[in-house]
């Protein structure tokens, strides 16, 4: 390579700059900047109503932004959203499977929307039935499927065009652990084959396991954007002590202000965030208080950045 060449930075697969969306004068997406690199799994976390779905809808050209610039797969959005959608897959927050069709017919019809024909279409439909482990339910009506099966079919449908990017809005909400692991398995397979993912989730474990980078959004703003590990490292103390019950609370109340930790308390539950656990655990042991000592995780970061109060 010519040493004078600038280092090649891969073009982002999706990019939003200063994205704004208002509904009835209320700003629900408030100057969001996002960059998603090819092949990466990018997560959007945020409380209910934070603006995740609205952001994705703008990204997909399903609603025009009020301000800001957007490009997905090199196409300006919303001007060329249709061309972008030709090359991406969508798993919406709420299933939009066609109840007038069986499992197989759903895939078949969706392939038709993408212009797939003949042998290629039949082959793709068969491959995806296998991918979603729905071969034995191929002729079942949608109403006969479990929640997990519907979600798998929706994911399979999103892959009909072998997309370069798949956008998933809460892909595993409402699923049992087995079904969730199955979807994770599928998503890991996609990442391995180089497909980029943008996903929203309320499950911190899901985000920690799958996402290379994620943005935490709250009230339409990005409050942090980084890898899960960096977010934990930079935004929160590494040790967490969980206390609960009246004895523990009484002990806490007796501590006069010099606790070497950040305290969060609700009712009979308290979380102590600290840089050094040893002095606290020693004190707790001495007082005979039961506690749980664990490393800080993404949920702690999320709660710290978005607050503990209920949303919506």
């Amino acid at each position: 390579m010519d040493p004078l060449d600038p280092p090649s930075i891969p073009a982002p697969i999706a990019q939003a700059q200063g994205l704004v969306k208002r509904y009835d004068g209320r700003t629900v997406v408030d100057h969001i900047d996002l960059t998603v690199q090819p092949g990466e799994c990018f997560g959007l976390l945020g409380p209910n109503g934070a603006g995740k779905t609205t952001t994705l809808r703008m990204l997909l050209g399903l609603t025009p932004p009020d301000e800001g610039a957007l490009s997905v797969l090199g196409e300006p959005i919303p001007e060329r959203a249709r061309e972008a959608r030709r090359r991406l897959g969508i798993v919406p927050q709420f299933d939009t499977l066609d109840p007038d069709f069986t499992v197989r017919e759903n895939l078949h019809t969706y392939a038709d929307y993408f212009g797939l024909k003949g042998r290629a279409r039949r082959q793709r439909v068969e491959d995806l039935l296998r991918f979603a482990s729905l071969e034995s339910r191929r002729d079942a009506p949608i109403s006969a499927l479990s929640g997990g099966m519907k979600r798998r079919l929706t994911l399979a449908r999103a892959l009909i065009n072998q997309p370069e990017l798949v956008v998933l809005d809460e892909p595993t909400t409402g699923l049992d652990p087995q079904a969730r692991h199955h979807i994770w398995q599928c998503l890991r397979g996609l990442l391995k084959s180089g497909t980029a993912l943008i996903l929203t989730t309320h499950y911190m474990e899901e985000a920690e396991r799958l996402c290379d980078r994620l943005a935490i959004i709250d009230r339409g703003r990005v409050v942090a954007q980084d890898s899960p590990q960096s977010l934990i490292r930079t935004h929160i103390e590494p040790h967490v002590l969980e206390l609960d019950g009246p004895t523990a609370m009484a002990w806490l109340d007796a501590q006069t202000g010099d606790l070497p930790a950040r305290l969060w308390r609700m009712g009979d539950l308290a979380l102590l965030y600290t840089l050094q656990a040893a002095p606290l655990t020693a004190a707790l042991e001495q007082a005979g208080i039961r506690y749980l000592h664990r490393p800080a995780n993404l949920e702690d970061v999320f709660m710290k950045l978005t607050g503990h109060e209920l949303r919506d």
Partner: protein
Amino acid sequence: MSAFPLPRLSLRFIPVWRRNLRVWRKIMVPSIMGNFGEPVLYLLAFGYGFGRLVGDLGELPYMVFLASGIVCSSAMYTASFEGMYSAYTRMSEQKTWDGMLGAPLNLDDIVLGEIIWAATKALFSAGAILVVAAVLGLISDLRALLALPVILLAGFCFGACAMIVTAVSRSYDFFLYYFTLAVTPMLLLSGVFFPLEQLPTAVAALAWALPLVHVVEIVRPLMTGAWPSQVPLHLSVILVYGLVGLTVATALLRRRLMR
């Protein structure tokens, strides 16, 4: 973006249309039975029952007069039903449109596909009546076949108007207003059951401003062995209603769904 952008027409409406055809094929037998059954009942009940009382209308036996009217009204009803109840179900209840919007289809493609599908169903049902009329000997000659493209255009027109109602509807109840305030008056005023000359001039003038009478004016001569007159005028009225309907419906639906 301007407030009232024109619909972008494209052949991408075809997969939308084909989706509806595929569903229709699954229930083809009862659909076709319905297409034949109802008009036969109408023709027999009105034609024989009423026809005895009415006798001939000018040169035409009442049954012959009525058959051509029912072909047109059936196109109107079928397209209106499909453009309202069925399209609304797919848009709102089944989220079929949302699914399509995840594919490389635009709302414009979906609206156009739905309206052309409504026209297709109008063609099926009016075509079935044409067959029944032919079997009963109520058709003069092969000119009746020329009624088919007119019926398709009429179906497009009524489907497009119905789609406007769908665009502003918040529930199924709303469709009743349109039937009561638009479809039924049009049915009664447009020369389907009796000649327009029977109406007071002011009412007739209103009828001429609506599309159905123009459909009847072309289809009736074609089915009764004559050449219609003023065809460009009649076709223009039907076409204008259709195109305005398509434009307004697309704009309203964009505002409703792409917000």
